[in-house]
C-alpha cells in the first residue's frame, strides 16, 4: 500500500522518529514518500533519502519551526492532490497538535500510539489499551485512507543511502493561529542521570515525598544515582532533571533498578534499552515487567529495607 511519511524536524535537525516511520512504511510494501514541510526542505532532503524511500515531497512554507496550523494545511493540500493509502506520523507532541485534527476534518481512519502494522489484505494496526495491560488489533473498515501516529522507538531507523526523487509541492498557507516564539531548554540539574552506569529509579509506588530521602540514601549506599518517573516530578517532589521518560531524559545505564514504577509507555520509551532492567512492583501485571530482564512481585519498601542491610 502507498504510504506517506511526514518528516519531523526541530531546529534544522531531522528527528530520529522519521527514519523509524520509514521502516514501518517499508513493512507495508510501499511505495514510500516522505513529506518534508520546512522553510528550506532541501536542507533535510539528504537526511531522509534513505533506502526504501521512493520520493521526497519538498513542501516549502514560511515557518522554519513546527506550527500545527501550517502542518495541517500543508498535509490537507498534499492529500487532496496525491493518493496515499496510509499516512504515518510519529506519536509525538507535534503530531498530537495536528494529526487527530486532520483525521477528523478529512474523515480518515485513525489510531495513535500504534506499535505494529501489517498489510493483511487491508491495514491492520496494533496498539495497547487499559494502561498497556492488553493489546488490540485494529482494522479500518469504511476508510480508503488511514492516518496513524506510530510509537517512537518501536521500529529500527531505516538506514543506507537511498535513491529517492524529489518533487516540489507548493501549498498556500492561510495563516497560523498558534505561533512559535521561542524554545526554552529543559532545566539542567546537579546530577546528569544520562551518564550514570547504575540508576535506582523510583515511581509513584513510594507513596509520599517524605520517602524520597530514604531512596536517595539507598542509592548512595548502592553506588547508584537516583532517578524517578514523571508523577514524582508532577507533584513537585523532585526536580525534572531526575526524570526518565519521553518528556524527561532517555537513559541507557548498565543497570536500571525500578522500584514502584508501573511502566507507562512514556516511561518505557526512556529506559527500555538499558543494559539490565530489574523491576520490583507489587502489581504482577505491571507493564514494567514486559521490558524487565529480572522482576520481583514484592513490596518495594520491604525489598529496600533488605537492600539497606546488604550495603
Amino acid at each position, binding site marked *: 500500500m502507498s504510504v506517506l511519511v511526514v518528516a519531523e524536524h526541530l531546529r534544522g535537525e531531522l528527528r530520529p522518529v522519521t527514519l523509524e516511520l520509514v521502516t514501518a512504511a517499508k513493512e507495508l510494501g510501499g511505495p514510500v514518500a516522505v513529506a518534508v514541510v520546512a522553510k528550506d526542505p532541501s536542507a533535510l532532503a539528504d537526511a531522509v533519502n534513505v533506502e526504501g524511500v521512493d520520493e521526497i515531497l519538498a513542501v516549502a512554507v514560511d515557518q522554519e519551526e513546527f506550527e500545527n496550523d501550517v502542518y495541517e494545511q500543508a498535509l490537507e493540500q498534499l492529500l487532496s492532490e496525491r493518493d496515499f493509502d496510509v499516512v504515518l506520523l510519529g506519536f509525538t*507532541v507535534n503530531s498530537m497538535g495536528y494529526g487527530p485534527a486532520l483525521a477528523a476534518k478529512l474523515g480518515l481512519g485513525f489510531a495513535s500510539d500504534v506499535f505494529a502494522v501489517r498489510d493483511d489484505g487491508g491495514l*491492520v494496526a496494533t496498539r495497547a489499551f487499559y494502561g498497556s495491560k*492488553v493489546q488490540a488489533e485494529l482494522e479500518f473498515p469504511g476508510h480508503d485512507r488511514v492516518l496513524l501516529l506510530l510509537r*517512537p522507538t518501536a521500529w529500527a531507523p531505516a538506514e543506507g543511502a537511498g535513491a529517492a526523487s524529489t518533487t516540489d509541492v507548493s501549498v498556500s498557507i492561510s495563516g497560523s493561529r498558534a505561533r*512559535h516564539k521561542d524554545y*526554552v531548554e529543559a532545566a539542567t540539574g546537579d546530577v546528569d542521570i544520562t551518564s550514570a552506569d547504575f540508576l535506582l529509579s523510583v515511581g509513584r509506588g513510594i507513596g509520599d515525598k517524605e520517602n524520597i530521602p530514604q531512596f536517595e540514601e539507598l542509592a548512595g549506599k548502592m553506588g547508584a544515582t537516583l532517578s524517578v518517573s514523571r508523577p514524582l516530578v508532577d507533584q513537585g517532589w523532585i526536580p525534572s532533571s531526575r526524570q526518565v521518560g519521553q518528556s524527561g531524559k532517555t537513559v541507557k545505564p548498565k543497570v536500571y*533498578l525500578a522500584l514502584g514504577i508501573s511502566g507507562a509507555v512514556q516511561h518505557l520509551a526512556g529506559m527500555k534499552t538499558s543494559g539490565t532492567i530489574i523491576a520490583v512492583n507489587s502489581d504482577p501485571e505491571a507493564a514494567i515487567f514486559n521490558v524487565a530482564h529480572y522482576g520481583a512481585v514484592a513490596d518495594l519498601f520491604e525489598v529496600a529495607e533488605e537492600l539497606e542491610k546488604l550495603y
Partner: protein
Amino acid sequence: MKIVVAVKQVAALGDEVEFTEDERDVDPDYLDFALNEWDTYATEEALRLCEASGDGEVVIVSVGDEDAEDAMRRCLAMGADRGIRIESEERLDPIQVARALAEVVQAESPDLVFAGVQSADAVQAATGTALAELLGLPRVAVVTKMELGDGKATVNRELEGGLVDVLEVETPALLTIQTGINEPRYATLRAIKQAEEKEIDVRQPSDLGTPAYEVTKMFVPPKGEGAEMLNGSAADVAQRIKEIVEECTA
C-alpha cells in the same frame, strides 16, 4: 470568562482480565473506573483562571453512560459549576468522542476549552485536537503553562526531552493540559456533598460518523520475554538484586 473542560471516566484493569465473548473488549466486570488524571489538572487550571477573573463559569462535559457522572461529580466537587453529559453506552474512538462533544461545546460559546492531553486507559492523545478542529478553534497540545492576554495567550508546550516551545495562540482556543501544570485541589467532604446538588444536563449525541477504527481482537500481550522472576522473601529478592547489580556493573 467561560471555560469548558472535557473530561473522561477512565477504566483501569486490576490483576485479572477476562474478555467479552467476541474478544473485542475487556469484560467490564474486571474494570475499575476513575476520573482521568490529566483531567484533574485541566479542571484545576480552568478553576484558577475563572477565580482570577472574578467572574467565571466552568462547565464540565463528558461522553459516557450514567456511571461517567461519577467522574464529572469529582470535577464539580473541585468547584466546577455544572456539567453536560452526552449519552453513550458504547466505547467510542477519540474522533467520535470529539464529534459527540462538538455541538454541545459550540453551543456554550466558551472563551477557552480544555481537555487532558490523553486518557490513562486509551492513550490516544487525540480527542482534544480533533475537537478543536470541529469547533474551528486554534489549539495547542501538551500545555504546561499559560498566561492569558487580550485576544491571545502565551503558552508553553512541552516537547520530548523536556524542551519547551513557547507559543502565542489566538483565543478563544482549545488547549490540551499536561500533568504537573498545577497542583489540583482536593475536594472537601462538604464540597463532595454539595456537588451532588449541581446540575448535570444529559443530551443525546448527533451523528458520530464512521468509526475511526474497529477493534477486531483484544488479547493479553505476550509476557516479558526472558524476564526472570525473582522469588522468595524480600531478603532473597534483595540478595539476588545485589548479585545481579554486581555482575552487570563489574
